[in-house]
């Protein structure tokens, strides 16, 4: 390291320490921001020191969870990568992790729009790409334009990077082919091969309709999550590649998680995943493919994933006033639909319906445009909810969406501020549980569905009450 660069690194590190000591929180971005201001090529320079190389993970949905799974897999081997584990996934989050942690290899989840810039600097050894769904059109623009950017990134990485790509997302799968349509080097595909998990019909927010090769509409044999499924182009013949890592038999067990049989190039494994929903099966498949590429034996991978804990805000349960509050991040239609499907399974066991707290914010990190709530299938829960409290900066619009999804209005309450709304939801769940009497009553529980910045507020509130650790610790 040159003396000048070393000074800049030390300065930025000091700022991070000061920021944390002040207790105002975060510290997951500020040092990196400062360093990148002082040395725009800092990611490349610090990344060069990772002699084991770097893995980058990107997707619209599931990147924090997938990266967390890969970290768990590496930890089972005693490997401790430099990892932006708090989910700060733009350049400054990556730079902060590189500044503050030491390790031989890197593991970075990267924001979709920043993937090209970060990859250019890091020359990753492995690129893991999960999915592209419509999300924050005000920030990311159209998905096809994003997919075009990613295609350039993948082309630039070919030769020195390996790839783990989702075969079931046509926007991702096509990245594994060069412009002539031939398979690129080093690609491992993952996907779902269990037709029993198909959606009964295609969802409203269906994003990849046209063949990436010729523009003709795809034909779908089945879809599993949004537009992820089994597709082919009747015009040019482009089709879903056969996945190397595939879930061949899946049982979903509501919030408890799932059990699946997974085919890998190195034999079959049984995976007990303690995270709910088919979307987490996809995350696990990405992690299995990545783990194999990173030299971990499949059985070891399965054991590590069985011990997984949810990433921050992605299905964690925290007790508030004696009531378990299960937090499930929602941020775009495809992700929200998967959460709603999981909750529907939970509601089947509840005569009266479940208790919800939904917090819709419209800050920059959420997307200023809250249109997306009209693309998510809240109709799924129209007769499954006992009570819902709507919170957040756009709470009244969330409540309106639920009314038009057919939820009874006398079960919908609007309390915009985070703290009183959460307390109201918790109190109501506790009251109904005690009214119904122990021990036959259901366990009181609230499902909390915040958008990203509402999740940060919630997490801060719970930390202030000593109920949860602050996420940056």
């Amino acid at each position: 390291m040159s003396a000048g660069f070393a000074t800049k690194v030390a300065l930025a590190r000091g700022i991070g320490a000061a920021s944390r000591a002040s207790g105002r929180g975060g510290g997951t971005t500020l040092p990196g921001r400062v360093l990148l201001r002082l040395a725009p090529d800092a990611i490349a320079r610090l990344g060069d020191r990772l002699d084991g190389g770097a893995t980058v993970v990107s997707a619209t949905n599931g990147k924090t969870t997938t990266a967390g799974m890969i970290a768990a897999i590496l930890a089972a081997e005693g490997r401790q990568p430099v990892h932006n584990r708090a989910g700060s996934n733009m350049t400054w989050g990556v730079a902060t992790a590189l500044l503050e942690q030491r390790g031989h290899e890197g593991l970075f989840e990267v924001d979709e729009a920043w993937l090209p810039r970060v990859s250019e600097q890091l020359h990753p050894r492995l690129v893991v790409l999960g999915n592209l769904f419509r999300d924050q059109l005000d920030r990311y623009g159209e998905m096809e334009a994003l997919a075009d950017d990613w295609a350039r990134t993948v082309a630039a990485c070919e030769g020195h990077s390996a790839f783990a790509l989702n075969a079931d997302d046509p926007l991702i799968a096509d990245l594994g082919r060069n412009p002539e349509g031939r398979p690129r080097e080093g690609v491992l595909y993952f996907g779902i091969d269990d037709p029993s998990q198909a959606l009964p019909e295609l969802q409203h927010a269906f994003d990849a309709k046209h063949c990436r090769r010729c523009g003709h509409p795809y034909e779908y044999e089945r879809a599993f999550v949004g537009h992820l499924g089994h597709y082919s182009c009747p015009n040019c013949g482009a089709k879903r590649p056969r996945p190397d890592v595939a879930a061949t038999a899946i049982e979903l067990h509501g919030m408890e998680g799932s059990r699946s049989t997974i085919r890998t190039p190195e034999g079959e494994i049984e995976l007990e995943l303690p995270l709910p929903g088919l979307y987490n099966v996809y995350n696990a498949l990405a992690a299995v493919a990545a783990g194999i590429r990173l030299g971990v034996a499949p059985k070891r991978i399965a054991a590590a994933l069985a011990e997984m804990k949810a990433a921050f805000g992605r299905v964690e349960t925290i007790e508030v006033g004696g009531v378990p509050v299960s937090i499930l991040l929602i941020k775009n239609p495809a992700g929200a639909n998967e959460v709603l499907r999981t909750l529907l399974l939970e509601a089947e066991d509840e005569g009266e319906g479940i208790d919800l707290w939904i917090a819709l914010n419209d800050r920059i990190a959420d997307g200023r445009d809250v249109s997306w709530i009209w693309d998510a299938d809240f109709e799924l829960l129209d007769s499954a909810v006992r009570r819902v409290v709507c919170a957040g900066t756009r709470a009244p619009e969330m409540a309106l969406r639920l009314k038009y999804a057919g939820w009874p209005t006398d079960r919908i309450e609007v309390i915009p501020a985070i703290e009183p709304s959460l307390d109201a939801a918790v109190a109501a769940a506790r009251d109904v549980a005690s009214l119904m009497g122990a021990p036959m009553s259901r366990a009181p529980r609230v499902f909390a569905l915040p958008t990203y910045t509402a999740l940060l507020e919630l997490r801060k509130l719970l930390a202030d009450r000593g109920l949860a650790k602050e996420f940056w610790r």
Partner: protein
Amino acid sequence: MELRVLSLYPEQMNIYADRGNIVFLQRRCEWRGIDFSHAGAGPGEPVDPTAHDLFYIGGGQDRDQRMVAKDMVASKREALADATGDGAVLLAVCGGYQLLGHSYQLDEEKLPGLGLAELETVREPGPRLIGNVAIEVDLGSGPRILAGFENHGGRTYLGEGAVALGTVIEGKGNNGRDGREGVRHDNLIGTYLHGPLLPKNAWLADHLIALALERRYGTRPELEPLDDAFEDAAHASARAAAGA
């Protein structure tokens, strides 16, 4: 009574949750005992100008919009001109709005438009126009506010004699320069406001329902009032987000 709605290119022109506009119309009819029918017309499919009274088109990705522009001129222009000339309601949002004009500039390509309104959409240097927006409109019953969200790269300019839907209170509007937003011609409305538009502005939804029923049944019906507490709160929330 029955409200008959046709969505144009529902598979292609739907990226800003345009479905919300349709759901909103449907529920408000159902709650009043008005039958509701909804059909879609995709690429190449002909449109019967008399079979529907409210036509809707939303926004799409560039690739889809390019295809839709050409297809619409080839397969639907005359029917839509006949329908709107005969009092049918046409609500065109965002990309759909741009296609109402004579032409639409997409990258280097000049796409044909329906020519149903005197307007042209061009590209200019500068960022996309993105954000919450509020406009003041008068559809014959005094000034009202429409609130929504805009996100467009194209700049739209109205031709001589064309009437804007409203004037911008907060936000950018047609082009970020002349303070005008959208277009209005008889019962045709084009606008950049999504969000979706109708759920944020229940009064406009009811206005369009009444116009469409008038076209079918000859007289404008008095719509039964609904309990709009949620709708009013959502409208206020969207207005507040725009700062109006």
